[in-house]
């Protein structure tokens, strides 16, 4: 096999940021405390903003700066704030704040889950590798990484058994899709991108309402009792 050519400094840097996003996604498997998961989500969104600035600087797309600013404002500041406030509320009868809760997890241990997630991420890499993508703003490896982030986020949502972790898993899935958008749709009109972000904020608010309702009913965040509707 011939020596592999280096892809260039920009491509290498962008790929490293993309891989860091994937690693943060894996990091969510490890974090047991919910507020740490919120922090990881904020750092993942910050990485996306950094990558947007990098792509905008190198490819001369000034709209991406605005997008990065909007991402920081919404996904790094506003949404974690909403989530933290939600988790900080005490449960009924003085139960401790939900933010310190350990995230409920399924039967598999951490190492096994990470191995399964690696297999799933591999599938994402293979799938993206089969796509002939030309003319992309960010390097194509980032697209493979974004598909892996989406798939690993699905594994995270399946494995976790409490509502807050599942919600954070869904938001990190949306981060993976934002990463894919940076690769293939970097010049999507700004107004559409901002509309998507505000739509995400709305969704977060609704999720928050439903989680609060769940806490009120079940006095915990666990979804282990959500088994009554079958068939």
């Amino acid at each position, binding site marked *: 096999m011939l020596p*592999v050519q280096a892809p260039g400094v920009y491509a*290498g840097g962008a790929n*490293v940021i993309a*891989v860091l996003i994937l*690693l943060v996604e894996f990091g969510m498997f490890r974090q047991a405390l919910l507020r740490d998961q919120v922090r990881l989500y904020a750092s993942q969104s910050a990485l996306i903003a950094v990558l947007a600035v990098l792509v905008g600087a190198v490819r001369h797309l000034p709209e991406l700066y605005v997008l990065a600013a909007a991402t920081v404002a919404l996904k790094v500041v506003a949404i974690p704030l909403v989530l933290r406030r939600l988790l900080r509320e005490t449960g009924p009868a003085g139960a401790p704040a939900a933010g310190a809760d350990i995230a409920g997890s399924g039967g598999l241990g951490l190492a096994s889950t990470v191995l399964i997630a690696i297999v799933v991420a*591999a599938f994402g*890499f293979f799938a*993206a590798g089969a796509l002939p993508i030309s003319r992309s703003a960010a390097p*194509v490896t980032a697209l493979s990484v974004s598909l892996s982030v989406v798939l690993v986020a699905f594994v995270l949502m399946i494995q976790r058994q409490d509502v807050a972790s599942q919600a954070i898993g869904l938001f990190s899935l949306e981060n993976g899709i934002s990463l894919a958008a940076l690769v293939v749709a970097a010049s999507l009109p700004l107004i559409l991108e901002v509309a998507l972000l505000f739509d995400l904020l709305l969704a977060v608010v609704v999720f928050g309402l439903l989680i609060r309702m769940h806490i009120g009913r079940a006095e915990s965040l666990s979804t282990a009792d959500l088994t009554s509707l079958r068939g």
Partner: protein
Amino acid sequence: MSILLPIPVVQLLQLVTIAGAAPGVSGVIARAEARLQGRRGPRVLQPYYDLAKLFRKEALAPEGASWVFLAAPVAAATCYLTVPLLIPVLTTYPLPLGYMGDILGGGFILALASFLVAVAALETGSPYAQLGASRAKTFAAITEPVVLFVVFTVALLTGTDLPYALAATVRSSAGQIIRPAHVLAAAALFMVILSETARIPVETHTGTNEFGMIEEARPFEHSGPYFALLRWGSAAKQLILYTILINVFVAPWGLAATRQAGAVLVAMIALPAKACVLGAVVAVIDSSFAKLRLFKITEFASAAFLLAVLGVFTLYLGGG
């Protein structure tokens, strides 16, 4: 100076550098760690004095131990003297004996040394030594796949298995340094090195925490010159692994490109200096994190495995 050193001399200087600088690097790490923790710490050359003291002491062997018990430290030391011939220590060009083995060969020899010491520890019948030996082998088995994937990354990047080739590739352009495969492989290798050299978060290097000891428990029953050989051997292993990480992945500069005496001398000073910098980083990690509980070391290994596998993926499937 334009004295050209003959090749065998350069080869010998490689051995001398590793063998001589190894305890020094350990001393630097110990002092740095002590300083970080607010203590004065031992002097940097303390390990040399310890080794000298130990060579003067009497050697004892437990009853029932066979010749393996006494031969193992010597054999291990021999292995640790062989590996520096295979890796880029002082030069950018491969030396003749460097073709004896590639990265995998070097790995095999290091594993052989570890195996011999473990067998010797098992022979003693001491519970702590056996505990350490069995744990060390288990965790070595768990970190093996990581090393393999790092080797795969090296192989995919250069088309060969020779560490010299990868060092040359990394030196060739800035793009090679920042590509994710390279960064991930280096990070994975660093985590394996933390595990192999018995540092936090896998094990506390100093002190005798019996419930947590892995590597440190193996030389429990040796004494005298054999214990000195084992202590020196673990320091040499540490420096060899640091050398692989530094001279192949992270900072392959400062090596002699010619046989000129001046260049070789610069390399001989540069290598321990770089190793001390890496040692300072390790000392910072030592002082910042807590030791993992034993059953969580699999999580640590799986994290390293994740990094290594992602390195191969981004390279093989992503072209990065």
